[in-house]
C-alpha cells in the first residue's frame, strides 16, 4: 500500500515536473513572487512571462550543451 502510494506520487511528480526540476522550481517561485507583488500597488502580471522567457531558453541550452 505504502509502496503503491509512493509509486503513484513518483508517477504524478514525473508527469508534471518532467525532465528538468529546476524549471518547475523556478516557475513555482515566480508564481509565489507574483502573489507577493500583487499584494502591493505594483503591477505583477509581467513576472510569469519574464520567467518563461528566462527559464525555457536556459533549460533548452543546458540540455543541448550537455548532449553536444
Amino acid at each position, binding site marked *: 500500500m505504502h509502496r503503491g502510494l509512493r509509486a503513484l506520487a513518483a*508517477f504524478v511528480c514525473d*508527469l*508534471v*515536473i*518532467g*525532465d*528538468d526540476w529546476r*524549471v*518547475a522550481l523556478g*516557475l*513555482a517561485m515566480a*508564481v*509565489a513572487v*507574483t*502573489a507577493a*507583488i*500583487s*499584494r502591493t500597488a505594483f*503591477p*505583477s*502580471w509581467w*513576472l*510569469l*512571462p519574464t520567467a*518563461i*522567457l528566462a*527559464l*525555457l*531558453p536556459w*533549460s*533548452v541550452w543546458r*540540455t*543541448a550543451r550537455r*548532449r*553536444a
Partner: protein
Amino acid sequence: MSAGALFIAVFLACTVEAVEATTIVLAAGLARGWRSAGYGAVAAVAVLTVVVAALGPALTAIPTNALRLVIGTVLLVFGVQWLRKAVLRAGGVTALHDEEAIFQRKLAVAQRAASQRRGTVPDWYGFTLAFQGVLLEGTEVAFIVLTFGSNQHAIPLASAAAGAAILLVGAAGFAVRAPLARVPENALKFLVGVMLTGFGAFWAAEGAGARWPGSDAALLVLLPGIAVLGLLLVAGLLRQDGARDRRTAAASPTQRAS
C-alpha cells in the same frame, strides 16, 4: 477562454496522447488478437472516465481564484515541459518520437510472450499491454481534461473534446491497422505546449492576484509570444547544429592530413 478555444486546446493535446496509445493497442491487437486488446483499451478508458467523473465535480467546487492559482501553476509547469521537449526534438537535440519504431518494438516483444487465458479474456498479455498503454497515455488526457475543464467550469465540454480526439485517432488507427506515423506529432506537441504554457501562466497570475493588461485580450499577445520564443529556440538549435557539422567537415581534412 471561449468554448471553442477550450475544445481545440483539449482536442489537440488529446490527439497527441491518443496517437501514442493507438500505437500500443495496434501492436497488442495485431500480435495477440483484437478481442483481448480491445478489452484492455476499453477497461483503461473506463478507469480514466471514473477518475474524471470523480475528481471533476470536486475540483469545480474549489473557489475560482484558489483553483486558478493551483491549476494554473501545474499547467504552466506541465506546459513548459511539453514545449521544452518539442523544441529539443524539433532542434535535433533529442530524437523525434518514432511511432513506426515503437510499434515494431512492441510487436516483436508481444509476439514472443506466452499466451494465458483469464476469465473472459482470451489472452492476458494482450489485455495488459493495451490496458497499460492506454492508461499511461490516458493519464495525461485525464489531467488536461481536469485542469482545463475545471478552470473554465466546463468539464463535460473538455471530456467531449478528449472523447472526439480518442474516437477519431482510434478509428483512423483501426482503419489503417498501422501506426499513425504521418501525424505531425511533434508539431502538435509544440502547439499544445504553447497553449498549456500560455493558459497556465494566464490563470496562475490571475489566481495569484495579478491583473493582466487588457484582461482576456492579453492571451492574444501571450500565446503568439510564447510560440515565437519556441520557434526562435528551434532555429537557434538548428543553426548551432549546422555550425557544428560545418566545423566537423572542415576539421576532417586536417585530421586526415595529420
